[in-house]
């Protein structure tokens, strides 16, 4: 058998084959395929499984020292220009491949339980396979252009999956918003790629970097132009990884099925932006200014996400803002010139955030038995509480996730987040401070989610509260009201297909951090051996401990506040905080007013502009045409010629024209 690294291009091909086959089946033999749902899902899982096996083999080869593989072919050419495509498999890629295939597999198994009763079961699995194919292709892309291709494809999959329940208005709007906001980022990315190609005649990551530094050194390219191009390229990751101010699409994208939120909008696709910035590290390291911008954007995002998450009452939205915040941490790491720390946090975050989302899915799945399929009810934590006794596995894994994300040692999140904060402390102390405060907020809101959902008494049967929530959301349930009354299901633990992925993911959430301990980082050792050596040599316990103790303390403080407020109910935060600072509370509840600004300025503005252009088109441009027509028609006799003798009229004009031309040229010669 050939080395897996050499045939890595097959990794995205297998899920693609599966997706194409079942997609064609859905189009041509819809009913039959839908009856064979288990067959389809098992074969699609096997296709992704083959990719997973290949990925792990490739990872193993990279760990045992096999050199990176890059193969290219000419995809398009014209004149002197050639656009190459192909694949690259290096340590970073192999780690990401293993991560994505693992989480995809787990989410597929989970979806078998979660989507069991859905009419679109087969379609869902097809989209999942299509997504995993695009995401895997993105990881092995050897150049910017190919990354852009897969970048768009994962965006499309996200669009299809957010809008999966297309009979819901919310889903329809969210899907469109996700795609369009991402396109705004892609606008910059495309221009940046074009500009870099213009400046360097290359799409290759390393070639671009060396060419740019060369042109700047020899004064061929003004530094501001290089900076501008880097910023344009950064717009892409800003949108994809939900960085301020292009983060607005991600919380809305939670309208999609929960497995999708776990896979695409927490673990893999949103991390693609961070991944691209890591790939472009050689380029970004030339410009300290762009690194400052990246770090600044990352810090703002990280603080903003956490602050909004403080007040969220929707379980999934809370997790979504937490994702925004964590992505901000990763970007901060990129800006501090520590891409490996960012990637390490990406990996640990993927494990525990996927687990948290899948856990929330498990909760929602069983809440739906009680309150019905209305997301406003099923996802609201005011109706939950006391689920721990009924759902032991879900609650335990969720708790593990909360501890991990809060940064309590020795769980995964501690090591990766601390690494980022340590780097920020050296590069930008102010950003470190904000990140440090955010860590406390993170611990607070995560445990707030945990206590509200799993502890206390179950509040789901409170009809008044339900009606109150519905009327707040302006939802009138006429038909489903009856359904509500019938619904007397009980909270229960989810089936094995849903709990197995939770248990599976709990293991790395606890232990994976040990791969990246700062004095002996196996992870950095794989990606960049020399840096690992440097890290190990320069490691000093005196420097590490104070920072580590500080962040543990601030996290513990956050947890304690949540514990007193939501478990013991000793502190009334409403009285203590919300009523004293109503404007600040309002500011947070309204998500910094960003959604409203977005709606008012961009959505309404573009609508108005388009309407005005259309008015101009139909009244002015077309108006002139019709006016000309009217004048011609109105000129009495002309009308008759026009209607009855078009041919003659036409011939006359032609004849006249020829005469005129002959006359002109006759005079000239």
């Amino acid at each position: 058998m050939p080395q897996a690294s050499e045939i890595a291009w097959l990794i995205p091909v297998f899920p693609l084959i599966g997706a194409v086959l079942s997609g064609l089946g859905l189009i041509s033999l819809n009913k039959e395929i839908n009856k064979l749902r288990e067959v389809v899902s098992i074969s699609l899982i096997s296709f992704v499984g083959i990719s997973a096996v290949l990925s792990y083999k490739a990872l193993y080869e990279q760990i045992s020292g096999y050199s990176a593989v890059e193969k290219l072919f000419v995809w398009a050419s014209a004149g002197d220009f050639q656009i190459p495509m192909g694949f690259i498999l290096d340590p970073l890629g192999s780690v990401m491949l293993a991560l994505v295939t693992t989480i995809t597999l787990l989410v597929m198994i989970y979806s078998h339980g979660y989507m069991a009763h859905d009419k679109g079961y087969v379609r869902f699995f097809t989209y999942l396979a299509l997504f995993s194919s695009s995401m895997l292709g993105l990881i092995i892309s050897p150049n910017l252009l190919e990354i852009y291709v897969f970048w768009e494809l994962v965006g499309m999959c996200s669009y299809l999956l957010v809008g999966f329940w297309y009979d819901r208005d919310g889903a329809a709007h969210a899907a469109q918003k996700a795609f369009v906001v991402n396109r705004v980022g892609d606008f910059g990315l495309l221009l940046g790629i074009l500009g870099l190609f213009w400046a360097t005649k290359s799409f290759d990551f390393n070639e671009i970097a060396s060419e740019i530094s060369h042109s700047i050194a020899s004064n061929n390219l003004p530094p501001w132009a290089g900076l501008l191009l880097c910023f344009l390229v950064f717009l892409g990751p800003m949108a994809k990884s939900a960085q301020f101010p292009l983060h607005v699409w991600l919380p809305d994208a939670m309208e999609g099925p929960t497995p999708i939120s776990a896979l695409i909008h927490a673990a893999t696709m949103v991390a693609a932006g961070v991944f691209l910035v890591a790939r472009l590290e050689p380029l970004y390291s030339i410009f300290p200014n762009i690194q400052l911008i990246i770090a600044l954007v990352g810090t703002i995002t990280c603080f903003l996400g956490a602050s909004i998450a403080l007040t969220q009452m929707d379980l999934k939205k809370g997790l979504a803002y937490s994702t925004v915040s964590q992505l901000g941490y990763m970007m901060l790491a990129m800006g501090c010139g520590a891409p490996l720390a960012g990637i390490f946090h990406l990996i640990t975050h993927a494990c525990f955030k996927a687990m948290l989302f899948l856990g929330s899915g498990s909760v929602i799945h069983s809440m739906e038995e009680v309150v019905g399929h209305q997301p406003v009810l099923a996802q609201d934590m005011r109706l939950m509480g006391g689920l721990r006794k009924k759902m032991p596995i879900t609650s335990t894994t969720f708790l593990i996730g909360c501890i991990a994300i809060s940064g309590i040692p020795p769980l995964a999140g501690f090591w990766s987040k601390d690494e980022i904060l340590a780097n920020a402390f050296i590069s930008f102390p102010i950003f470190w401070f904000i990140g440090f405060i955010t860590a406390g907020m993170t611990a607070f809101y995560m445990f707030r989610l945990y206590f509200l959902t799993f502890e206390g008494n179950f509040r789901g049967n409170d009809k008044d509260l339900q009606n109150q929530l519905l009327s707040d959301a302006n939802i009138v349930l006429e038909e489903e009201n009856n359904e509500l009354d019938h619904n007397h299901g009980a909270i229960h633990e989810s089936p094995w297909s849903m709990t197995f992925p939770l248990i599976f993911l709990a293991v790395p959430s606890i232990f994976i951090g040990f791969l990246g301990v700062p004095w002996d980082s196996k992870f950095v050792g794989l990606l960049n051996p020399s840096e690992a050596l440097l890290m190990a040599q320069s490691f000093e316990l005196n420097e590490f401990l104070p920072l580590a103790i500080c962040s543990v303390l601030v996290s513990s403080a956050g947890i304690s506040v949540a514990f007193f407020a939501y478990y013991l109910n000793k502190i009334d935060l409403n009285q203590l905080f919300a009523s004293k600072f109503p404007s600040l509370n309002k500011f947070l509840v309204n998500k910094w007013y960003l959604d409203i600004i977005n709606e008012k300025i961009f959505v309404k503005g573009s609508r108005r502009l388009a309407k005005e252009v259309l008015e101009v088109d139909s009244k002015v441009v077309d108006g002139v045409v019709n006016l000309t027509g009217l004048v011609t028609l109105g000129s009495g006799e002309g009308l008759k010629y026009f209607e009855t003798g078009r041919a003659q009229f036409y011939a006359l004009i032609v004849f006249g024209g020829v005469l005129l031309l002959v006359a002109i040229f006759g005079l000239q010669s």
Partner: protein
Amino acid sequence: MINYCLSHVLDFKTIGTVGVSLSNFPWLSVSILFPIISAFVIPFFPDKGEGKEVRWFALIVSLITFLITVGAYINGFNVNDDGVQLKESVNWLPSIGLTWAVGADGISMPLILLTSFITSLAVLAAWPVSFKPKLFFFLILAMDGGQIAVFAVQDMLLFFLAWELELLPVYLLLAIWGGKKRQYAATKFIIYTAGSSIFILLAALAMGFYGGNIPNFEFTHLAQTEFSQGFQILCYAGLLIAFGVKLPIVPLHTWLPDAHGEATAPVHMLLAGILLKMGGYALLRFNAQLLPLAHAQFAPLLVVLGVVNIIYAALTSFAQRNLKRKIAYSSISHMGFVLIGIGSFSSLGTSGAMLQMVSHGLIGASLFFLVGATYDRTKTLKLDEMGGVGQKMRIMFALWTACSLASLALPGMSGFVSELMVFTGFVTDEVYTLPFRVIMASLAAIGVVLTPIYLLSMLREIFFGKENLKLIEERNLIDAEPREIYIIGCLLLPILGIGLYPRLVTDSYLPSINSLVDRDLNAVRSSTKYINFANNDSVPFKAPSI
């Protein structure tokens, strides 16, 4: 390199020995005349009813025509040759210099194939036409031949005739089978196009008579004639108006939404798939190829107009509430890339323009077909009266989504490649100053954001959300039938094929485009006034080497 030489030698041998008889076969004349002559058989068909026989007949004829054009491509066309191939030349009316000269180079061949391909599918799409079927299919077949002629003729006077010949069928197809405002739309169409084609005739006569007493309209002759700059500019301006109406270029576009808004689905497919391409083809053939000195001066205007097309039409499309008009404006928007590509002076950009024509031919045809199929079910084109249709028509929804994604230039589909080639070609090309390129590319890239806004909003308003109760009660919303799936499948296959491996198509016309761009670049260099080598110091100018 060795491979390339070998294949070249092999090609030569096959043509030299085995292929003699086939390569002498008058492929193009047959592909033009066969559908036209067959069309004249239709009136003698015995049946008077629903036209079942007629439509089968038309389908077979159009398929044979397609096969003939494919045969021409396989047997007589060498992709490495940049000149006109498959030449046939018969003196028709020597006294006025009219020659039946047909032939194909890399620019015509893909469009000839596109024409016969889309026409076959349009005939299939016209299956439900029951009103005057004989006349309908007669006109479609006549149009088939006429349109192939437009792309194949190598004589400017003949080109004018073919251009006019194709107007009449379209006029009748609009006027007889159109919607409520069909008379208005058809009249507007004929006045616009016929009126503007006067400029073609004038330019043709002027160019044919230029410099000699014996008129000669053949392209090869015109290409060798050294027209003076002033003369070129005059002709260029006239031709730009004529072809600008067809393409269309804003503000000469207002016939298009009316015509497209009123046409039935199959006619619609032909309008969007082929008719618009005539404008782009003619711009390349005459303005860029025959009038290089004028092109050197007009090209910046083309780029500006292209950007205007992209943004203006995208915005109008967003505001449109009528489905057909929405897609019609999106066609205009996409044609903007053709203009930028033609004006780019780079072989990458120009071949991007060429690819955009082929690609939009396929995507536009598929979208318009879907509009027709949807209208058959909902009986309304107003977006306000639709909504939630997706639950009843799942497969239709899937097809719509696929074609809309193709139209918004999703990678993996042809539209992305062509837009990317235009962008890359334009940005890397050193003829224009840097600020001009930066501004134009940034503005054109706004289209990248606007396109999904209007296309996805459209999908949302038709298919997403709660079911429109009034609509499902009144209308029978059946899902897509096999014939419709087949048509879209036929269109999506090349869309995906080109998107995954664009050289499938680009390799066939690259030599022709290269020599065309070379000629234009020489013209730019000779008129030194207009050269703005912006960054001579940073990036040395590289001319495409052939």
